Structures are given as structure tokens and as C-alpha cells.
């Protein structure tokens, strides 16, 4: 489990994260959402130990990530948005890096590459950006790491690859794997991420499971506007509205609408989910 307590980070005088307290439980796929510049990538790099917190603490299974101990590094893999086109064949890259991880499964790597329709014999510096991203994703999923941190993993992927990505994540991760995905492409990951974390400037606006969200908010695809709606968007033939779920109705979360609702009613949502 990852525990964050009163975390603060700044670039010089520019405070990015302030007094953040939250936890990441095992076996969940967290979606880390937020506007540009709120510190999603910064939070991910802090979580995996690439940066040292300026204030507060982060503990992953009781260890500070910035200590970068081999025992913790073995358990985690960070997939940055911008990946390096190395001069290795994809399969050689995976083998070379896989030796450091006890649970790395090369057959699984080849299987995921096959699902992504990417040639493992190809040199990485001769791949397109999408193929390169898929190679790194394949390695991340085959690494058997307990914690996977992914920064915009679907950037650069074509439409079929986005579907394959969701399938691969569901198929090739174990029950105790915690995945934290930072993304702007919420629609790409709508059926994958649970819980959802929405970051605001220097704060966590929401950290809730889909079940909690649907228990407290109702996503209404109706023809009439409800006076209680917190957010509404006109769709062909009706409206998409988000309103408090007083009647205990069941609905399907629309992450984009949720994001807009949270941003429009920050204090209300905080209060609603604090209960």
C-alpha cells in the first residue's frame, strides 16, 4: 500500500502540490486526472522515487521511494509519457531489463507484443512512437511489478491499440498489482480505472471508487434538465446530467462529466465525499 501524508512539492517558488494526504490500496487501477499543470506527472515521479518530497512523506510498503532501494525498485515500474527509442531490438531490451525483476515473464512480453501486433524483432529506434509505447507497455505488464506508474500511456496509440491496451491491462496484471495511470484521455480508460483521483492545484479534489461515485452521484441521460443537476451537457436527443443520487439509482459513470462536475463544484463534492 502507498501512503501519502501531507505531501508538498514545489519547483523553486512555484508550489505544485501542497498538503496532500491520500492512500493507494493494493489491487486497484487508479486513474489520476487533473488539468494541465496541476502536478499529475510530478506526483507520479514522487511516488516512484524520481523526485524527493519537499514536505511530508510517501511510504510504499513502509519504504520511502526516494531511497530507491533495490527491493522497492524491483517492485515498481515507471512508464513515462516520453519513452526513449533505444538501439536495441524490443525482445533484447525486455530480456536485458527483465533480469532485474524476479517476476518478469518473457513469454508474457512476447504474448502482449503479439496482442499489440508489434514485432519484437524490430529495433526500438526504428519503431513509430506508437509501436515504441506499446513495447514499453508490454514490458511494464510483463515485468510482474507490484506497482505500475503510467504517465499518459495511451498517448500516441491508435484506436485499436487503445482497446488492446485496456484488454492487456485487465488480462496481464495480477490481483495485487496497483496501477496508477495519469491521463488526459479519460475516454480511453473509462472502463478500466477504479478508483478515480482528481487533482486540483495543490489539492486532491476526489479520491473515490466507481461504486462510491455512483452511490453519491447520478449520471442521468434524460430529455429534461433537472434543477438539481450539478453539470449538464447537451447531447443529440437529450442531456447528460450529473446530480446528487438521492434516490439510490444505478448509473454508469461518465468520467469526463464527473471531472467537469468536480471542477465546477469543488467544495460541494469535497463535502459530499467526506461524509
Amino acid at each position: 500500500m502507498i501512503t501519502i501524508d501531507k505531501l508538498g512539492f514545489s519547483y523553486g517558488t512555484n508550489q505544485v502540490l501542497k498538503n496532500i494526504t491520500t492512500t493507494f490500496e493494493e489491487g486497484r487501477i487508479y486513474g489520476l486526472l487533473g488539468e494541465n499543470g496541476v502536478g499529475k506527472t510530478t506526483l507520479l515521479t514522487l511516488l516512484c522515487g524520481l523526485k524527493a518530497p519537499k514536505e511530508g512523506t510517501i511510504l510504499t510498503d513502509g519504504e520511502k521511494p526516494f531511497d530507491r532501494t533495490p527491493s522497492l525498485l524491483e517492485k515498481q515500474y515507471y512508464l513515462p509519457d516520453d519513452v526513449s527509442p533505444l538501439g536495441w531490438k524490443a525482445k533484447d531490451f525486455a530480456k536485458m531489463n527483465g533480469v532485474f525483476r524476479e517476476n518478469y515473464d518473457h513469454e508474457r512480453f512476447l504474448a502482449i507484443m503479439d496482442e499489440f501486433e508489434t514485432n519484437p524483432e524490430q529495433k526500438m529506434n526504428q519503431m513509430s512512437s506508437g509501436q515504441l509505447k506499446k513495447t514499453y507497455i508490454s514490458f511494464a505488464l510483463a515485468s510482474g511489478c507490484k506497482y505500475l506508474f503510467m504517465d499518459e500511456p495511451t498517448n500516441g496509440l491508435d484506436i485499436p491499440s487503445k482497446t488492446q491496451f485496456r484488454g492487456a491491462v485487465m488480462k496481464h496484471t495480477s490481483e495485487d498489482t496497483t496501477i496508477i495511470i495519469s491521463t488526459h484521455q479519460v475516454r480511453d480508460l473509462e472502463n478500466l480505472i477504479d478508483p478515480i483521483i482528481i487533482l486540483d492545484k495543490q489539492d486532491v479534489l476526489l479520491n473515490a471508487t466507481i461504486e462510491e461515485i455512483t452511490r453519491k452521484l447520478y449520471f442521468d441521460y434524460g430529455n429534461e434538465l433537472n434543477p438539481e443537476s450539478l453539470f449538464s451537457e447537451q447531447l443529440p436527443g437529450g442531456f447528460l446530467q450529473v446530480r446528487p443520487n438521492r434516490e439510490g439509482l444505478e448509473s454508469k459513470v461518465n468520467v469526463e462529466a464527473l471531472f467537469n462536475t468536480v471542477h465546477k463544484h469543488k467544495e460541494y463534492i469535497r463535502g459530499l465525499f467526506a461524509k
Partner: protein
Amino acid sequence: MKNNTFSISRFGKYFVHDLKTQVKNIGMLWLVCVLMPVIFYATYMLFGNIFSPSGHLYFIKDIVAGPKGIDGPILGVRFAVFVVTTMVLTMVFPSRAYGDITKKSEGSAWLMLPASRLEKYLSMMVICLAVVPLTFIAGHLLCDWLVCLADPTCGKAMAAFNINSAIGQPDAPQFVANGFWLLYAMIIEYALTFLLGALIFKKWKVIFTIIALFVLSNILTPILAACISGMDWNEIGRKIENWFVDHADRLDFYFNACINVGLAFWIAVCGTWSWFRLKNRQH
């Protein structure tokens, strides 16, 4: 419970990974530097045989017919080539091998490799200060020996050169390891300096390191000049002379000690600085 500071098996895995990576990064540069005696000899003989001693251009048929009697490059020339090649290699290879650590993407991947900071640092030092210089020296001297074997007009091979016999005076200080240590110490100092530059500067690593050394020497020279300007040089000269007379039987020991203390000091400064650059690296 795993040892998070140093484990032989993990270090072994990491060292092999590092070696493979460096073969990709600097393999070609290393190969060209090792083969430089052959490349230089071929170029020297080609251009030497294009022109006649009177400056006229030979015809192709004359060149094909065989050498026109010029001798191969002598030891001094080949030694100069060796020094220049060594300088270029030691200035360039550290930044090509480890310069990417300062880049966000490559540096992040390197930091996230499951090995301890100590293991990564040790591997870097072993490769920069032992593997690359020693294999380069061995390979270069071997190529030079092969050139001398193929063309005896080149004279003695560099490997057979003996600095102590070259000095030729029986009472002159004897250099350790027949001068090899001097050469190796120089390579280590250069490699470590340029490795530190590669870890400090984000781009133009070699140029900025040279500029930094130039600036440093320009700062230190006036300070040193100010310190010694008020000294009585006649008195100091006399003291030095007396010291030499008093220690004449152990001059070689003091001479080699000076070299080794200087080397140890430089390794300590650059090595410690490099360690902290790696330890506190953030992306």
C-alpha cells in the same frame, strides 16, 4: 531480507547490463581508437607514397607496384598519435557512455533500474576507470605491435618502450611500472574529470567541461601567483636543492609518491562529486 546496499549477484547482473549498454554507446568510438595505429599507418603510407621525394605525384601504377622506399612512422610519431587518440577518447567516452543520465527519459529509466546507488556507481567507475582505458591501451599497443611486425621500418613497438631507460641516467628517478602507471594515471584523471562534467552539464558536456577547466585554471593561477609573489625564491631554491641532496637515495620514491598523491586527490574530489551527483539525481 535483501541487502539493499550491495549484493554480488545483483551487482553482477547490473554490471553485465551496463557493459552491454556501453558497447552500444561507445563501442564504435573505442574500436576506432584501438585501430588507430593501423588507420594512421595506412594513411601515412598512402600519402607518403603518392608523392616522390622530389614532390612529384607518382602514377597509380607506381603506387600499385609497391612502396617507394619511405619508412613507416617512427616511434615518436606513433607515440604522438597514441597521446592524441587517448586524449580524444578520454574526453569523449564518459559523456557518450553516461551523459544520458541527465536526460529526463533515459535518466529516469536508469534511476529506476533495480540496483543500489552504490552498485550503479561502482559499475560506472569500473567501466570508466578500468575496463575502457585498459582494453584501449592493450588493444592500441597490440595494433601498434602488429604494424611494427608487418613493417620493420617503423622501428620498436610502443609496448617495448621503457621510460626509465629512455631517460638513460642511472641516478635519475625511476618511474613505477616502467611508465605505464604514469600513462594510466593520466587517463584516469581525464576520464574522471570528463565523467563529472557529463554528470553536471546537461548539454555540450565536453565543451563545457573544457571551458570549466579553463575558467578554474584562470581563477587559480592569479591566486597562486599572489600567494607566491612575496616569497624569497633564492631561499626556496636553496632549500629545494638541499632537500634533493638530502633525499638523493630515495628520489624515485618521493617522485612516485607525488604522482600517486595527486592522482588520489583528484580521484577523491571527482569521485565524491560524481557520487553525490548520482545519489541526489532527480527527474
